């Protein structure tokens, strides 16, 4: 049987295969390039890596960064938790009930493709600058992907397994609990991960539009006083935080739901 390409790609002999080496090299190259680019007169607004790093440390030291994150992470977590509970429940409902599916599926298909960010200005004008607005921004952006993934997880259950359950006289309830839900677990978790990514996007947009709270405020403030190292530092911090959290979730997902245990492994 044929498999994925390996040695056909252009490779040098005697390669170092330790992934940590490559990650470190990658970081070094990236930050090195950044440093060079910063010193080059591309733009006054583009500080080199060194100054950004220093700015980051100073913002942690003087407490402005931690304080901002407290304000940012609160609505993010609340929003995601709320969204997850309601979204997963609804997605499961959609998967199990043809009636709910018929009513809701077209809407969520459109919502998943749509730029939900367009609604955020409305939210901020209606609910002001407080926690509610931010939580809503997170919910509005994260909900479609969480619902759709939960729904797909339920719907795409291997029909052979469902038939097997019926053949051994399983009731509908047993079928849902013992077959459909375990099978959907992987996609539901993936939906949560993607929902979190959307949540980060929502919170950043909400905060860049509404001041004066959280990381978004730090960014806009330092931008307005032309303190570019600090502005960059704030931006880098949220991007790294989001990326790291989501990568961690991905790793967790692979551990909890290895592809072989989803019946997606070799089909021989």
């Amino acid at each position, binding site marked *: 049987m044929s498999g994925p390409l390996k040695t056909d790609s252009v490779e040098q002999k005697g390669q170092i295969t330790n992934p940590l080496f490559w990650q470190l090299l990658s970081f070094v190259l990236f930050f090195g390039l950044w440093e060079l680019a910063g010193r080059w007169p591309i733009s006054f607004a583009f500080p080199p890596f060194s100054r950004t790093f220093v700015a980051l440390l100073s913002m942690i030291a003087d407490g402005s960064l931690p304080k901002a994150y407290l304000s940012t992470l609160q609505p993010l977590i609340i929003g995601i938790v709320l969204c997850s509970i309601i979204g997963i429940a609804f997605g499961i409902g959609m998967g199990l009930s043809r009636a709910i599916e018929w009513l809701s599926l077209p809407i969520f298909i459109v919502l998943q493709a749509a730029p939900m960010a367009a609604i955020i200005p409305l939210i901020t004008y209606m609910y002001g600058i407080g926690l509610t607005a931010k939580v809503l921004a997170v919910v509005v952006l994260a909900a479609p992907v969480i619902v759709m993934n939960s729904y797909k997880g339920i719907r795409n259950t*291997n029909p*052979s*397994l469902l*038939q*097997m*359950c*019926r*053949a*051994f*006289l*399983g*009731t509908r309830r*047993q079928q849902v609990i*013992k*077959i459909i839900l*375990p*099978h959907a677990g992987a996609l539901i978790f993936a939906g949560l991960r993607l929902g979190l990514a959307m949540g980060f996007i929502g919170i950043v947009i909400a905060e860049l539009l509404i001041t004066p709270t959280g990381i978004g405020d730090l960014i806009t403030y330092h931008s307005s006083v032309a303190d570019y190292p600090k502005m960059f530092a704030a931006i880098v911090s949220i991007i790294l935080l989001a990326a790291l959290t989501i990568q961690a979730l991905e790793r967790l997902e692979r551990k909890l739901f290895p592809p*072989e*245990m*989803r*019946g997606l*492994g*070799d089909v*021989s």
Partner: protein
Amino acid sequence: MSADAIVEVNQVGKIYDGGVEALTNVSVALPHGRLSTLLGPSGCGKTTLLKIIAGLIPPSRGEVWVKGNKVDGPGPERAFVFQDFALLPWANVLRNVAFGLELRGLPKEERHQIARKHIAEVGLKTFESSYPHQLSGGMRQRVGLARALAIDADIILMDEPFSSVDEQTRRKFQEELLDLLRHKKKTVIFVTHSIEEAAYLSDQIVLLSARPGTISKIIQPSIDREGRSPDEIRRDKNYLDAVDEIWQILKHYV
């Protein structure tokens, strides 16, 4: 050598959504305690017929009677072995084999005890904690068979159970199946597209015609297995005649 019919198929027809007529006017009696095979060209509806007997698909016309009762769904007296194994990928062998009993509500200790017995029976004793993805195709099919045996049904329905394994493993399985059944006195209804397999295993072969499938002929190989090795049986005149007779009929459908 006649035995009472345990399954009676009475003028069964099946038309799928979209107008495909898979079966038409199928009537046959399948004897108790024997191995009957449904054989025919691709698309002749043999799997459809098997699933109708299993109660997984309703017939469009006609009825099926099992042990004197009309079939309107799956039942505890019929066990199904799937072609693609249909094992829970997130459960180990022990839980998979015990699954039928789990659905019945048997307590854990009891069903695991029963499962262990049947796992040993199919020769997978050391693999109780393994997961399906760690097993070969042949081993997965044994798990499927053990699961079917564990619920102690009278009738075992097998849907091309050996089609996903290689020839050597397949022959070994055929031996083991016959061995197993000799001791258990179960009725087996088997679907295959292999003529040799059908002739080797069956007490009775039901030949189906091409779509729309209907009974073409019923053949009884009458092979005497008493004290003979598999190789001897494969040279037996009755076996070879049966193979030839089937082929003569089937080759018109190719």
